[in-house]
């Protein structure tokens, strides 16, 4: 190595133009491996599902081009829209509740008014490290009237709480599980953003006579708008993708959770139980496009206000 370095150094100084173009190639060299796998597991499946959605595979007649028939079918499919309505409701209620708690917790952390600050920070974050499967199994037991918390409360107080896994309550119960899993993660995102707000802004506000709440609404929240937008966009995407929790709760609550409970669950049922892969690909594309449009629109709106 020591032998080769001096000549290379003089070559580097001697011919800067050649060096520059080769550096562009080096850049591609670094990003190339990522892009190769990305093409295989992102671009190829997207292209393939567009292809699938335009064709129909029949036992008799083979693979035929059907144009936009599947899309038309999806737009008139009551099962798809009922699942969509459910995740939209979930998004409208669960996401604000979860992000609200996360934001309050982050503000409390940032205010410096907490005893045991680092204990608080790490404890609230811990559920993020728990797999959705384990979180759901745990809450399934807690919800249970046999040996769960609900059962304990019923016995201790002689009451009979409604079953959290009944058809009317199961969506709220899923919302609680998802909130539990991600409240700490979102709190950390907000807290990290709050920490880099220049302290001089607070001092200026204090000199102007602003109280705690005024500092929060006028200084802190506008300063972390970017983080708020990002967290909301991720939560929108997550809500529309809802699958694990209902799929696992399907076994203990077979009547409350249908096979088309969420659009993702519907896609899964169509392709693996119903063997309707072409239509499943269509539903997945429709849902993916809706998700991207809403996430993108929200991002544009959120970012424009900032400017």
């Amino acid at each position, binding site marked *: 190595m020591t032998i080769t370095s001096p*000549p*290379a150094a003089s*070559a*580097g100084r001697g011919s800067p133009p050649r*060096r520059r173009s080769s550096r*562009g*190639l*080096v*850049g*591609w060299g*670094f*990003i190339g*491996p*990522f892009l190769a796998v*990305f093409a295989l597991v*992102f671009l*190829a*499946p*997207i292209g*393939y599902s567009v292809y*699938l959605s335009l064709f129909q595979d029949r036992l008799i007649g083979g693979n035929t081009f059907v144009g936009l028939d599947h899309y038309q079918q999806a737009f008139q499919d009551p099962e798809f829209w009922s699942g969509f309505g459910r995740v939209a409701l979930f998004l409208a209620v669960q996401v604000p509740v979860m992000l609200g708690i996360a934001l309050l*917790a982050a503000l409390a952390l940032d*205010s*410096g*008014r*907490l*005893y045991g600050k680092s204990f*608080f920070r*790490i*404890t609230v*974050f811990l*559920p*993020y490290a*728990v*797999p959705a499967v*384990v*979180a759901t*199994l*745990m809450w399934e037991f807690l919800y249970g009237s046999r*040996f769960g*918390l609900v059962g*304990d409360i019923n016995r*201790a107080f002689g009451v009979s709480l409604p079953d959290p896994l009944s058809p009317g309550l199961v969506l709220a119960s899923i919302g609680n599980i998802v909130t*539990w899993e991600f409240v700490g993660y979102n709190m*950390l995102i907000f807290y990290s953003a709050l920490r880099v707000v220049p302290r001089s802004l607070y001092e200026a506000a*204090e000199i102007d006579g602003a109280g705690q709440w005024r500092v929060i609404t006028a200084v802190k929240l506008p300063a972390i708008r970017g*983080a708020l*937008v*990002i967290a909301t966009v991720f939560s929108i995407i997550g809500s529309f*993708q809802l699958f694990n929790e209902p799929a*696992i709760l399907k*076994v*203990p609550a077979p009547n409350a959770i249908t096979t088309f409970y969420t659009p993702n669950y519907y*896609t*899964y049922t169509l*392709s*693996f139980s119903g063997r309707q*892969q072409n239509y499943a690909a269509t539903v997945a594309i429709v*849902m993916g496009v809706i*998700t991207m449009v809403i996430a993108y629109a929200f991002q544009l709106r959120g970012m424009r206000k900032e400017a």
Partner: protein
Amino acid sequence: MPTATDAPARARKHSTDVPRIRRRVHSVDRPRRSVSVTLLAGLVVLYTVVPLAWLVISATKTQTDLLGSPGIWFSGHFALWDNIRQTLTYDDGIFGRWLLNTLLYVVLGAGGATFLAVLGGYGLAKFGFRGKRTVFALVIGAVAVPTTALAVPTFLMFSKMGLTNTPWAVIIPSLVSPFGLYLMWVFASEAVPTELLEAARVDGAGELRTFFRISLPLLAPGIVTVLLFTVVATWNNYFLPLIMIKDPKWYPLTLGLNAWNDQAATAGGQPVFNLVITGSLLTILPLIMAFLLLQRYWQSGLAAGSVKE
């Protein structure tokens, strides 16, 4: 006495025997600690901790005690070690096999994803080349694509390639982390000074050597962050293996635990709730330990990622 304690009291800013300084100290930067805020925050802690505490307590109970004693406190018989032994030996020790599978998926999947994200993020941050903006837009757009929407076509593709029901079907899709790439891109632009790279080039070091000898150590906190998040994503993955793997021998822990849990609901199946609970505890312990031990690294990495938005 007052003269003797004067200096240390001033050093410890919260000491109570210097009331005059205290007013200034408890300003914007160092406000007074508040019991009511702490109590409110305590409710959030309670919410996150109760289910975990329940899991730990329940792991110490036998199947009969689980059904017969209140959930939130210990019962007379401490059966944790017995439960662990049963979990590890039940069904010819299939739990150990699932653990090894999970480790395989995590080491190759998350390790590979981190490696590709570090290389790519560094390339995006430190080299100007044509098509860079397109690459970036494409990858950021991919963050918004629901991964589950990709699962069905990926499954069909992989089944044509004969990859389903093999470890590759889980590992290959785990290799790409758009979020990790983004985080590394942001982190590398801040952490690696361009002048340092220029100096290394002038000294004649090759690009790869510069990367490994100079940039990689500077990127360490970012790498730990990306690694932890990809490890969590792979360790906790459920949907992908659910679709790809049919043979229980290749299950990761998440699928295996769920299969044990469903066993109670199937006709003639034997309920093994104590094993589900103990297995769950064993599944989450390694990740919780990793997060606790590596706090310093991932928290600084996460902070850097949120600077630029």
